[in-house]
């Protein structure tokens, strides 16, 4: 259930951004993908970043993840300036922040068996020296959390799975890592309608279990309303509006937000979840 504003503001900040900017290219090819955005994500908050395709959501996510550099601005991790200057520090940082990407088909190394993906997580969490049975138990647990059977998946290759199964495995991976922050970049946009709802449910269940902050990126404002406490609306690399989900969606200020909302049928009336999440 969405947290109240009061509740939220009492929680400690886990990730804060100050005028974060990303510029690609030089000269005539210069492209400001993210333009001086400010944000403050708190513990166990579900944040949605909503915007049309090309508005810079993925670029922002990658900066936050530390996968690409920040052109300008600062990112604070648990109220301290984020330091990811060496591989060791990055590795430490990534124990606290993880991601699920949009396209499950390109998220897997298709030359590796599925087990490799899960074993890598166990290793990252320091479980390299665990006995084999223990590792298998951990993997079986993680799979059953996302309604998959480890016995059926072990030794299979990613291309033998469906998109929905792949994306659920990605969530099993998060289940093993239990990061403080999860960035889910349009995790449901490329999977079948059946898997969509389960994936969302699992993400929210994870949040409840490990107090995880979820940064949910989507182009679907209806979906954002359904899952999030706070919503950031992104247009051309800038946040044009932000606030609690109720405030932003039921009482939009920016033209862009209004347009996004009007594109979704029946938003002001009773919310029809079946069109959104396939519930």
């Amino acid at each position: 259930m969405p947290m109240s504003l009061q509740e939220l503001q009492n929680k400690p900040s886990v990730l804060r951004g100050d005028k974060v900017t990303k510029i690609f290219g030089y000269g005539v090819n210069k492209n400001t993908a993210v333009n001086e955005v400010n944000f403050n994500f708190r513990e166990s908050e579900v944040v949605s970043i909503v915007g049309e395709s090309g508005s810079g959501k993925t670029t922002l996510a990658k900066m936050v993840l530390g996968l690409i550099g920040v052109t300008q601005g600062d990112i604070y991790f648990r109220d301290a300036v984020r330091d990811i200057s060496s591989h060791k520090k990055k590795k430490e940082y990534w124990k606290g922040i993880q991601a699920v990407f949009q396209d499950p088909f390109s998220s897997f190394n298709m030359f590796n068996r599925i087990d490799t993906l899960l074993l890598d997580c166990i290793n990252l969490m320091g479980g390299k020296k665990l006995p084999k049975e223990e590792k298998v138990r951990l993997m079986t647990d993680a799979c059953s959390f996302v309604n998959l059977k480890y016995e059926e998946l072990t030794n299979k290759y990613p291309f033998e799975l469906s998109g929905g199964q792949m994306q659920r495995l990605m969530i099993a991976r998060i289940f093993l890592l239990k990061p403080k922050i999860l960035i889910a970049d349009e995790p449901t946009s490329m999977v079948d309608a059946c898997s969509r709802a389960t994936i969302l449910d699992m993400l929210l269940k994870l949040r409840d279990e490990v107090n995880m902050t979820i940064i949910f990126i989507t182009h679907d404002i209806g979906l954002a309303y359904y899952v999030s406490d706070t919503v950031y609306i992104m247009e051309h690399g800038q946040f044009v509006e932000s606030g609690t989900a109720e405030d932003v969606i039921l009482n939009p200020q920016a033209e862009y937000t209004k347009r996004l909302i009007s594109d979704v049928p029946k938003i002001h009336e009773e919310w029809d979840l079946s069109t959104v999440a396939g519930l």
Partner: protein
Amino acid sequence: MFRQVKQAFSTPKFLIGFIIFTSVFLLAIIYPLISPFTPLQLVSRQSFTAPGRYVNIQDVVENRDRRYFLLNVEENRVADVLSVEDSLRMIDFLETHLDFPPGVLSVEDEPALIAAWNANYDPNQRIQGMTLAAHNENVRFNERLQVAISEEGVILAYFNEDGELVQDTANMFESRDFVNVNSIVNLVHLPLGTDNFGRDVLTQLLSAVMTSLRLGLIAGAVATTIGLSFGLISGYTGGFVDDAILFITNLFTVIPGFVLLILISNAMDPGARSVNTVAIVIGFTAWPWTCRSVRSQVLSLRNRDHVNLSKLSGHSMPRIILNDILPYVASYVVMALILQISTAILAEAQLSMLGLGPSTTDVATLGLMMNWAQMFSAWQAGAWWAFVPIILAIAAIAFSMNLMNTGLDQVFNPQLREG
């Protein structure tokens, strides 16, 4: 992987290329094993012996029934037939009537005397101031001499019990003596004749194919290793390293590889130019284009989510390059390797034609064979067998490898399939 190999064989181009290549390859392995000659063995005394089946002249005499040995035929021929009087008469005639300078001819040097007689004596010519009786006597002597020469045959010898070579006076072969072809020990088959040195072209050619393939493989391996490593590092790391590698690559691109190749080969001590060093030099000038194309592949791969995910799993850069990038470019690298091999074989041929190829007397390469054919004017001598088969071999190798490459391209880049 297995699936892709199967798919590759289902394209006709790859299949045909593979069949041609394997045939050439197998022939190059098997034929030198069954050939009676070693690749650089001097088989024939003549240069450019035409293709055909040959009987060794010795073998006509030295067959299974008897083992005879030819003595020095030149010296012994006819000599015994001439008496001293005959010799004196010939000298007298040649000196008085045919203006031979005195002292040149002698009774001892019978072969020279007979040669001079045969060259100058004409039975139809009446010498002025010679009696008819003397003329007729000369004609009769000449007839006797010619019969003796033609009937004499070959003088033979054999080893006796003591191992000494003894002249066999009982057996003389004449024009009516035959030998059963089946009993000839050593029928020499020269399907493609011999080269200028009298070496069997086919054996030499197939061993040269093997050497050239080895050279191509070494050169291709060198070029691919350097190009792949630089391409992977350059594409993945970006920044200063990328700029530096790109600069070197561009430098190599601006200077044509072949010119560089000529310069390096020229600078090398000819004695040091073995097949292996030439291969390494060729490989060293050929890596930039592998590097360029690997780099561009890596540039698009490094932004893929599976690479990002691998980073998020805390993997180190070398591990990501080897585990998450390399497998994706592997098929491409195999194709580049095939092209590198065939290009290297052609480059060696070109270098050798310029006299800058491997300077070796131990092995032949396709380029060296072409070079020899050119140096000893095989074209002018009409000895097509000394260069046409080599050209065909080079063409077959290059053609089959390019076909395989196109076939693989269709499998790995399906969008080009109908292109």
